[in-house]
């Protein structure tokens, strides 16, 4: 028979536990993360007797925690998704509000700046308006800096939030590892303390808000946490071990963010972080902050360079080209990289605002027509319509050592062949031309407008062909006959001193110029015409071959020196002439062991048997017969042997310059003591001449005539070349056109603007279609051109000049640098017009639209994130409800349970009472 009392007591105990559980549910009604609990009751089987089985009461088997894993994991993932959007909305809105504000945004500052430019354009001399423009520029720079500064604040906030989120995530990971440790002692989840599991789930829920996590549950309730899906997963919590996440952020580029797992230990890159607030922060930095700040920076730098370029293209109130208006400086005043945060205004004096144009035209008040001219300067227009030959620097390296090195061949047609352009700005340019009498080569130099600066005058018929050939580089319409300065005394052009010929300037102490020649060329039949050469302006008489030179080898140095001496002495210039004939054989070339004899001027020198014992012995042997041969030998410090013609009083002055011949008396094919075997008839050694003076020496004449004296022709342009010069080569018909050329120059760079502003020009119309351009200061004729048309206007160097009507013959226009044009507004108008220009900023936008585009992009991210946030909030609410349904505490349910269990408890207590009464009944019976 069942024990009524024990059944009652088991029930009382069970319902007490049930009531306690309900009480606990009520108590934790508002506890975050608490899961509803209920007791599990189990009936106790009693003793069986036949077919009669009476239960033995009830037993509490455990407290069950209401939990739904699916609902829980849905909650975690929806948490992550929703929290991704939250920072995106927050920070994108901040960026939009910073940049798009109607008062403090950039747009009003830009409007203000352009309005001030527009106002100034109506009255450019008004210093109050200049001040207003300058202060609007300062406001614009301040606006750029302020917005950049606010973006930095947003950047710093998002950075701090990201770091705080990461720290929290890492702390949660560690807590989870501790919870895992406590759970590790149990075998089943059901047996684990519910509070511990609640804590676990609460931690997971918090973690999922920060980063999208994947959770795997062990049977005993322990969890492992990873980031990313299977395949690319990084484990964050595994059992009792947590690995922290670290971040590396760039100081300069907000979008550059690298996450690392276990940064202090075995760091590995984490690139699977796609949801949660940390991922949202990274995304907003990449998608909003980075483009906003870099867009603002590039706008600042573009704006600055455009305005500065305009500023440089105009004149300020002092008549000077404008200096940069904007610059980039750090707060400490040091120059900085271009960025919005560093944009500063560099000008403090309103008069330095370049409002006017760089050039202007002034029609002469007495012009018969009312035609006016407008002038534009373009630094890019340095390439003229007809560029002509390539720049000198590209053809010939600067070679101050002056050894003509580059072979030159000019067609021997008499037609000028373009060689090089000497660009404006080259200083002390010198071209060295070495040719020979048969070469017939000569140089000519012209300006692009056809003024000949150097070289023999061209026949009028050839001039037209020259200037009209487009490859020659002359300005179109250049009129002939050409102006020839080459023949004018002094030969100066716009400050450039021009000389052509062989020349030397005094050097050293005592100051003395020497002009050495190379050995005279072996010629067949040449002579120098009367007056073809001049030394320091003194014309030389003719040197006629038939009169003085026997044989076919031309003149010897000795003969040339005598001729020079006679010609000079007659005119008494202070130039000394010397001649010498030498041949130096290097020590390694000598064949001292040779026994082959050689001859000098026909006098044979025979080596002793076995050859000469030393170079000195060889020299002694040569000097032994010097009296009859006229050739002496000396041994130099380096062991080389020099042969030279000796002075012979009988042969007269300059006899050191006589030719000598090295012969091969036995016609041996083996080398003699002097080295290689001499050819049949011997080797002719020719002399050279040297001119010396205490002052400068200049030998003028055609290059081929100079070559007869062994001299090189030098085209020397002393000073700075003020405009492009064209260099031509020509060879006389019948000549071979061969030579070598080299150049020396200093490329100092050239500012065409400064040059042109300092040189006012006068354009005078000499007929309806012809005009001249002269230097207004000196009256130097610069160009004389034909073929003027109103459609084409005038292009001169970097200037383009256009006329609004037909100029009358005799009309004059002065073109100058507008130094006193304070009333001119051409440049500030261009600044005002920037506001509506769409060709200066990317995507054919105006500057305002380029800025608005940045705001719009940030706004789009914000809008998208807001929409996503709304949708995900609904999903999240569903997930919360689902979890709540499984695990939440409802007060009404608990109240009902409370009554239910209370009644059960009371009933159970009654059974004990009944049992007691039954017992008493039985006890009374016995009694």
């Amino acid at each position: 028979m069942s024990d009524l009392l024990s059944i009652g007591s088991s029930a009382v105990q069970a319902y007490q536990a049930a009531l306690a559980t309900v009480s606990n549910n009520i108590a934790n009604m508002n506890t975050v993360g608490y899961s509803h609990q209920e007791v599990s009751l189990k009936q106790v089987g009693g003793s069986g007797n036949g077919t009669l089985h009476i239960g033995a009461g009830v037993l509490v088997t455990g407290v069950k925690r209401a939990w739904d894993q699916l609902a829980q994991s849905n909650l975690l993932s929806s948490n992550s998704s929703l929290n991704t959007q939250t920072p995106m909305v927050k920070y994108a809105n901040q960026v939009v509000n910073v940049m798009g504000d109607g008062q403090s945004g950039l747009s009003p500052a830009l409007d203000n700046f352009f309005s001030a430019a527009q106002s100034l354009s109506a009255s450019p001399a008004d210093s109050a308006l200049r001040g207003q423009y300058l202060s609007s520029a300062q406001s614009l720079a301040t606006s750029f800096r302020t917005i950049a500064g606010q973006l930095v604040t947003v950047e710093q906030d998002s950075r701090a939030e990201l770091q705080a989120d990461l720290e929290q995530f890492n702390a949660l990971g560690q807590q989870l590892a501790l919870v895992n440790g406590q759970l590790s002692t149990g075998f089943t989840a059901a047996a684990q303390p519910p509070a511990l599991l609640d804590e676990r789930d609460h931690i997971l829920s918090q973690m999922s808000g920060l980063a999208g996590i994947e959770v795997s549950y062990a049977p005993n309730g322990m969890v492992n946490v990873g980031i990313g899906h299977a395949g690319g997963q990084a484990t964050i919590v595994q059992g009792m071990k947590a690995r922290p996440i670290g971040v590396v952020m760039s100081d300069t580029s907000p979008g550059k963010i690298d996450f690392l797992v276990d940064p202090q230990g075995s760091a590995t890159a984490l690139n699977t972080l796609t949801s949660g607030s940390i991922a949202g922060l990274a995304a907003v930095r990449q998608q909003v902050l980075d483009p906003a700040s870099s867009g603002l920076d590039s706008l600042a730098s573009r704006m600055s360079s455009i305005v500065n370029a305009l500023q440089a293209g105009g004149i300020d109130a002092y008549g000077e080209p404008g200096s940069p208006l904007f610059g980039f400086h750090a707060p400490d005043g040091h120059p900085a990289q271009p960025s919005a945060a560093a944009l500063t205004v560099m000008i403090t004096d309103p008069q330095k605002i370049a409002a006017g144009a760089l050039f202007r035209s002034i029609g002469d008040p007495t012009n018969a027509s009312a035609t006016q001219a407008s002038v534009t300067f373009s630094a890019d227009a340095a390439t003229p319509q007809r560029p002509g030959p390539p720049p000198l620097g590209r053809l010939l390296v600067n070679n101050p050592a002056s050894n003509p090195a580059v072979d030159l061949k000019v067609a021997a047609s008499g037609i000028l062949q373009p060689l090089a352009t000497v660009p404006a700005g080259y200083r002390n340019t010198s071209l060295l031309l070495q040719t020979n009498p048969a070469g017939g080569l000569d140089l000519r130099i012209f300006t692009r407008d056809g003024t000949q600066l150097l070289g023999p005058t061209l026949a009028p018929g050839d001039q037209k062909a020259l200037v009209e050939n487009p490859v020659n580089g002359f300005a179109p319409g250049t009129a002939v006959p050409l102006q020839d300065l080459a023949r004018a005394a002094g030969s100066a052009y716009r400050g450039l001193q021009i000389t052509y010929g062989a020349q030397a300037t005094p050097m050293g102490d005592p100051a003395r110029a020497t002009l050495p020649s190379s050995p005279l060329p072996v010629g067949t039949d040449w002579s120098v015409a009367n007056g073809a050469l001049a030394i320091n302006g003194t014309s030389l008489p003719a040197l006629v071959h038939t009169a003085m030179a026997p044989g076919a080898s031309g003149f010897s140095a000795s003969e040339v020196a005598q001729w020079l001496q006679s010609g000079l002495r007659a005119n008494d210039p202070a130039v000394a002439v010397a001649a010498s004939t030498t041949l130096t054989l290097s020590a390694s070339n000598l064949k001292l062991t040779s026994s082959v004899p050689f001859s000098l001027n026909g006098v044979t020198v025979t080596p002793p048997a076995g050859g000469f014992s030393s170079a000195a012995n060889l020299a002694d042997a040569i000097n032994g017969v010097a009296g009859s041969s006229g050739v002496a030998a000396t041994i130099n410090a380096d062991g080389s042997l020099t042969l030279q013609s000796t002075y012979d009083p009988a042969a007269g002055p300059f006899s050191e310059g006589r030719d000598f011949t090295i012969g091969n008396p036995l016609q041996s094919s083996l080398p003699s003591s002097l080295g290689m075997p001499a050819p049949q008839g011997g080797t002719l050694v020719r002399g050279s001449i040297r001119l010396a003076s205490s002052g400068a020496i200049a030998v003028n004449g055609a290059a081929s005539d100079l070559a007869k004296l062994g001299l090189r022709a030098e085209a020397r342009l002393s000073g700075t070349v003020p405009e492009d010069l064209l260099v031509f080569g020509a060879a006389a018909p019948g000549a071979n056109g061969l030579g070598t050329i080299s150049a020396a120059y200093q490329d100092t760079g050239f500012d065409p603007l400064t040059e042109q502003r300092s040189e006012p020009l006068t354009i005078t119309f000499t007929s309806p279609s012809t005009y001249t351009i002269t230097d207004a200061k000196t009256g130097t004729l610069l160009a004389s051109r034909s073929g003027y048309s109103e459609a084409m206007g005038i292009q001169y160097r970097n200037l383009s000049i256009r006329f609004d009507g037909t100029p009358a013959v005799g009309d004059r226009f002065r073109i100058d640098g507008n130094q006193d044009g304070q009333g001119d507004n051409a440049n500030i108008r261009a600044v005002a017009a920037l506001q509506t220009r769409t060709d200066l900023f990317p995507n054919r936008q105006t500057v305002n639209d380029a800025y608005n585009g940045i705001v719009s992009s940030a706004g789009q991210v914000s809008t998208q994130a807001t929409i996503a946030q709304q949708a995900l909030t609904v999903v999240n609410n569903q997930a919360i409800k689902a979890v709540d349904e499984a695990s939440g505490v409802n007060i009404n349910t608990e109240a009902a349970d409370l009554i239910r269990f209370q009644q059960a408890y009371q009933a159970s207590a009654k059974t004990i009472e009944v049992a007691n009464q039954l017992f008493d009944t039985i006890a009374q019976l016995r009694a």
Partner: protein
Amino acid sequence: MTLSTSLTFSHAAQQMRTIQDAITRTQAQISTGLELTAPSDNTATSVAITKLNSALSRQQSYLDTMSTVGDQLSYQQQAITASQKDMNSLHQLALQAATGTMNPGDRQNLASQMSSLRADLAARANSRDINGSFVFSGGRAGTAPFAEDAGGAATYQGDQTSIGVAINEQASVNVDRPGTEVFTSVARTAQDGTTRQVGFFQAIDDLIAATKAGDSSKITRGIGELTALGDGINAAQADVANDQNVVTQQQTLIQQTQLQLKKSLSALQDSDYTTTITNLQKESLSLQASQQSFAQVSQLSLFNFLK
């Protein structure tokens, strides 16, 4: 579906908070009169507003410019009108001088009257604006255009820079007028048949000298020249009047454009009071209902009935 008590409460609170936020925003719309309380409310609208404001600001700057241009044109107009009077008087005097019945004293008298007119003309030609810039010297605003040299001759010292000012996105007007366009030169044929241009003041100086000397052929020549010079001034006056008309018309046009822009701006940026106040009432009602229902629902607990 059973929800936990705490979630029910927090939902109710959340809903009331949402309505409260909406009320705050609507109140801001009413108090500021603006549709958007912050650019992030609607970036696209906000950017459109910014663009309209830029356009308005540009139109305003055109309008400001035109007022400056108008002032400049007035200066020119004044000087030209005064010069016309001088020229007429000069013409009268020259005709008197040409009658030939003058005695030398009368001619001297005429010449000195002419000289004072010439001095007045020079003063007009060298007029300055309020900033002290010369009105008729082109870009050389600081240079008197017809300053007399040591010999008393006044040749043009300005330049021909034409100072255009934008008055809308496409068009511009010239704000300056080089002196040679008003005080023109005149062609004079010498006895040898060659023609050369003679400056404005030179022609007048020559006429005065001829009057003094009683050189009737030169006086006659001078009268012809005066007519040509007067034509130049008249033409300049017509030009100025034309420019003034352009400016006035353009001002009207821009004011119309501004009105249009302001309308568009108002449509975007100003809050519609009728809608906004209706919204506020709707939201207030909704909040009250939420609050009352919450008060009711929160009383509904089984415990209240277990007594």
